[in-house]
């Protein structure tokens, strides 16, 4: 009789241990490595803001005196009074691939905090969203926390090849998405 009682207690204890272990594994794998939300959120805003804080004329007044980041498109820049963020909009309106420009500014300067964060950049026009960076697919769909920040850009340039006609572009929404790997 006492053997059966001991058997029941042991079985009960084993079941409890199994359930506790499963609970621990589920909880530890779900929450203990929670991504740093504050850093990710601010990073998207910071990247947009820092590109909106400098004019093209300040870092690339002419092609002989141009920062490395803008060298690749220097000859294509139409309005140097634009900010760097607006330059992305201007170049998009002209059909120029801005992937290298964005890569030069953010990745080559290592502006992302550490190596554990990633970002993508989209532009929204009247026809939907278009991915400007990166060209290859990233795992943003798998990100547990994905933060998006957007800024509206619009502008104009004087087209010297077309009788100095003023061309307007935009408005576009430029969106940066950031997440932790």
């Amino acid at each position, binding site marked *: *009789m006492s053997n*059966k*009682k001991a058997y*029941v*207690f042991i079985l*009960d*204890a084993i*079941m*409890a241990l199994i*359930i*506790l272990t499963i*609970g*621990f594994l589920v*909880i*530890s794998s779900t*929450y*203990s*490595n*929670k991504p*740093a939300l*504050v*850093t990710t959120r*601010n990073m998207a805003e*910071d*990247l947009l*803001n*820092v590109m909106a*804080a*400098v004019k093209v004329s*300040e*870092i690339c007044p002419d092609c002989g005196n141009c*920062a490395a*980041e803008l060298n690749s498109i220097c000859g294509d820049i139409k309005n140097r009074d634009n900010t760097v963020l607006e330059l992305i909009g201007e170049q998009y309106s002209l059909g120029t691939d801005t992937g290298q420009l964005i890569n030069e*500014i*953010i990745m*080559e*300067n*290592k*502006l992302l*905090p*550490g*190596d*554990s964060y990633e970002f993508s950049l989209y532009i929204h026009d009247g026809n939907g969203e278009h991915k400007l960076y990166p060209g290859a697919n990233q795992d943003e769909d798998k990100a547990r926390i994905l933060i998006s920040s957007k800024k509206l850009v619009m502008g104009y340039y004087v087209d010297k090849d077309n009788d100095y006609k003023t061309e307007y572009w935009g408005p576009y929404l430029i969106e940066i998405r950031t997440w932790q790997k």
Partner: protein
Amino acid sequence: MKKGLAQIISFSLIVGVVIFIIALMVFFSAIKYTLLDTHKKTLDVQAEWVFDNLENNLGENGFFKNYRVNASGFDTFASDYDEEKERLVLSGLEQMQDFKDMDFCIYIDKYESGQWTIKENFGNDTITVSSGKSCYSNADGEMPEPDCPYPFTHAVIVQKPILYEDSSIEFARMNILICAEAIK
């Protein structure tokens, strides 16, 4: 005999459920207050606060506006750095709960030609990072874990993209290291 066995099983079941519930409560309480990051005291908000103070609270000592760091202004600020300036940088943090004492170190680094260089720095040079280097010598470019001297209990580093204005304007990074002593 069968009745006795049923009583034993019932009693065992009840005791088992009670012990199980108690164990679950202890288990989740332990996780809630000690293990999970979500309930740990963190300094992320304080670091953002310091970033805002640099822009808005330094008055005539200001060297940082709209993501732009003025190199000469920074040099002036850092050269005669004193307790009053430290108070301006940390202003408002005393109203936040959880921490009673704080110190910080700020440096600006720039990645160029395949290596990191430190452009500017000021603050407590006894705050070191995981590599053992301080704000004044950490040119690894990584996002290190700050190693704060006693009695500080918590640490954080926040890295922000900025524009560094010297003879030209360059994209660079501001690193804010904060150490704090938690209120127990």
